[in-house]
């Protein structure tokens, strides 16, 4: 049944391909894929990626690549931590099992230093500029894909964190979507324990120990006017030149205290919820607003997955009054496994999948818009009105919002542990921050970074 459905979907897309694939600009249609791509009859291309909502977009588009090249494409998708674990183990064991590795932005430095992925610069140079159209990618996301003068992956899944709110409830309450963190607090308070909104809670944050709350710190710190490391801030010439942690700053304390304060406006058990669970509180109508990566936005609007599909508005991520906000940027790039035996086929797939015209189809199938042409595309805008918020958000994002150095995963997890301990009152905020200041400084010194003692 599942196979039949997949075949039916593939057939539908292929039948409507010329119509769906109507390019935003005339030059796109000039790509002659038959000559651009090699023939790979009988070969199997294997991709390793996270099980995020866009996997079905890949599965629906892959039959087209299979028809063009004769190759078969298979996808293995896992949860977030498991994807990282599997990809590193594949890399360290020099396995050729996978040809394409889909990696998250904070892993870029780690994967390059571990020699798990190829430098894609030579591949890009030998490809027609109109096929790769590098400048069309969201500028900050171009930076995300680069490391030490190399290109580690080609962007395809840029995530922008946005505020998602219930239009109907905000209208009823006479509130505007929150622009500042104070607005966010006021709105969250208003919807919690309010007889006009029975059973409703203000919001839900990413509070679970580990990557969830660890990443949250990096998402919010810039929006409180702070920075995680001495030289990591928008506009910094070298974001990793001085890695003295800034956990002893007032802004870091404000982030911790903000999370503690907001707990009272969240559903019971919110201390341990992560991306999936807090999204569930929103789509089941239990919370009035949540900040969430734009990759979830199509699902929020899908009536088969959301009870509030037609009641959602989006706005730019909030920040404190008087500063330029830095909405969190994340997302995925596609790299070639440096131990793959089918690198040419892997590159054929990457350049095809990330090209303007296929990317547009990917977005229409629920994929995250990562190209300026897709963000500005009238057809996409008409079908997905929230892309307007992405267009505004992408102007303010910072590529180093989460560190991309090899130690990134450990930094985020360590921050996540102490942040969670403070949230649960196992330690005070000051104790947690003091512990972080020491432990992250030790980690940076061990990694050979400059740390001012």
């Amino acid at each position, binding site marked *: 049944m599942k196979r039949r459905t997949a075949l039916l979907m593939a057939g539908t897309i292929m039948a409507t391909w010329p119509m769906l694939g109507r390019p935003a600009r005339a030059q796109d249609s000039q790509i002659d894929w038959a000559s651009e791509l090699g023939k790979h009859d009988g070969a199997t291309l294997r991709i390793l990626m996270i099980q995020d909502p866009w996997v079905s977009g890949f599965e629906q588009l892959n039959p087209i690549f299979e028809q063009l090249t004769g190759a078969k494409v298979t996808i293995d998708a896992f949860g977030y*931590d498991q994807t*990282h*674990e599997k990809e*590193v*183990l594949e*890399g*360290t064991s020099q396995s050729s099992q996978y040809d394409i590795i889909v990696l998250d932005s904070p892993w870029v430095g*780690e*994967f390059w*230093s*571990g020699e798990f992925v190829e430098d894609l610069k030579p591949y890009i140079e030998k490809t027609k500029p109109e096929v790769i159209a590098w400048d069309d990618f969201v500028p900050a996301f171009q930076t995300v894909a680069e490391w030490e003068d190399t290109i580690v992956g080609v962007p395809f899944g840029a995530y922008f964190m946005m505020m998602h709110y219930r239009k109907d409830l905000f209208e009823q309450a006479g509130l505007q979507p929150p622009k500042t963190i104070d607005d966010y607090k006021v709105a969250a308070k208003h919807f919690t324990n309010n007889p006009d909104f029975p059973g409703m809670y203000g919001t839900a944050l990413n*509070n*679970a*120990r*580990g990557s969830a709350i660890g990443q949250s710190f990096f998402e919010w710190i810039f929006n409180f006017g702070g920075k995680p490391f001495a030289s990591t801030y928008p506009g910094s010439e070298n974001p990793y030149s001085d890695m003295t942690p800034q956990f002893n700053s007032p802004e870091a304390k404000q982030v911790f205290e903000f999370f503690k304060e907001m707990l009272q406006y969240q*559903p*019971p*058990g*919110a*201390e*341990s*919820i992560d991306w999936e*669970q807090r999204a*569930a*509180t929103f789509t*089941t109508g*239990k919370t009035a607003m949540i900040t969430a990566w734009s990759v979830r936005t199509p699902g929020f609007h899908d009536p088969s997955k959301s009870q509030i599909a037609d009641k959602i508005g989006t706005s730019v991520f909030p920040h404190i009054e008087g500063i330029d906000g830095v909405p969190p940027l994340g997302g995925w790039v596609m790299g070639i496994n440096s131990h793959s035996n089918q690198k040419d086929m892997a590159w054929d797939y990457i350049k095809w999948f990330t090209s303007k015209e296929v990317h547009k189809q990917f977005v229409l199938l629920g994929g995250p818009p990562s190209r300026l042409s897709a963000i500005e595309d009238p057809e996409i805008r008409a079908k997905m009105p929230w892309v307007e918020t992405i267009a505004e958000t992408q102007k303010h994002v910072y590529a180093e919002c989460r560190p991309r150095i*090899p130690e990134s*995963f*450990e930094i985020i*997890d360590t921050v996540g*542990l102490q942040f*969670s*301990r403070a*949230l*649960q*009152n*196992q*330690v005070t905020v000051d104790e947690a921050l003091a512990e972080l200041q020491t432990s992250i400084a030790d980690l940076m010194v*061990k*990694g*050979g970074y400059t740390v001012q003692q």
Partner: protein
Amino acid sequence: MVSRTTKLLFIGPGVAYLAIIGLFPFFYSLYMSTTSLNLTRPRRSQFIGIDNYVQLVTDPLFQKAILNTAILAAGSITLEIVIGFVIAKIFYEIAHIRTVNWLRTLFILPMMVTPVITGLMFTYILNPTLGIANVLLRMVGLPESGWFGSADVALLSVIMVNVWQWTPFLMLIMLAGLMAVPRELYEASALDGAHWYQQSWHIELPALRDVLLVGAIIRLIDNLRFFDVVYIATRGGPGDATEVISMFAYRQSFQFFNMGYGSAAAVLILFITLFVTTLAMRYLRRIEHG
């Protein structure tokens, strides 16, 4: 008379198998524990002697993991013995009922569920917002709980899941022990006017002591390597409330890829396990020899 060569030929494959599967990884782990090896930065690896062990014993998270593991093991095994005994006694008393075999099979079902599935199942059941557990508490007018989400009760919730899954194991062992108690002892004690609790204390528990100790040692080893439920349900959180030693070693080795530090933790865990089980075995032998 079997020749020495023949003996060696028979023993050889087993010894070789053990050396490859058991000894080589152990000595390699021992070697790695003396280095600063990180899989994603292998070129920076250096020999650092016992530094990893020194850091480990002073690491507050590792200390917390040892404490949590001790609480988990003590709490789980105690509850499993108490509940297991009560249920074993019930099954013993209703042994004449025809459907008892079916009931027994039903009761041991949790033991057959994969621990990962158990973790997932209880993640849903104990979800504070959407789970059935809080709905039921609300229905009977009791306060709701944060379960895995609250640092105060998270470890207790993990113990509860552990007890749910493994009480049947100790129950089966104790039921077998009870079946072996001679009927005459009950009859004689009844004639002497002993109450049921006196029979339990003076007849059944001494009879069960040996099997119970074997069962408890097996469960102790299980608890020292308890991982799946914590991995699925709490990841050691909230905070460090459910951090156990196996989770600590896993995080260092397979999330941070600090193979040196993670190996040191694994070696230390092995020695702790050996120490505790040796103590328990000695105690068992002492009992056996009166």
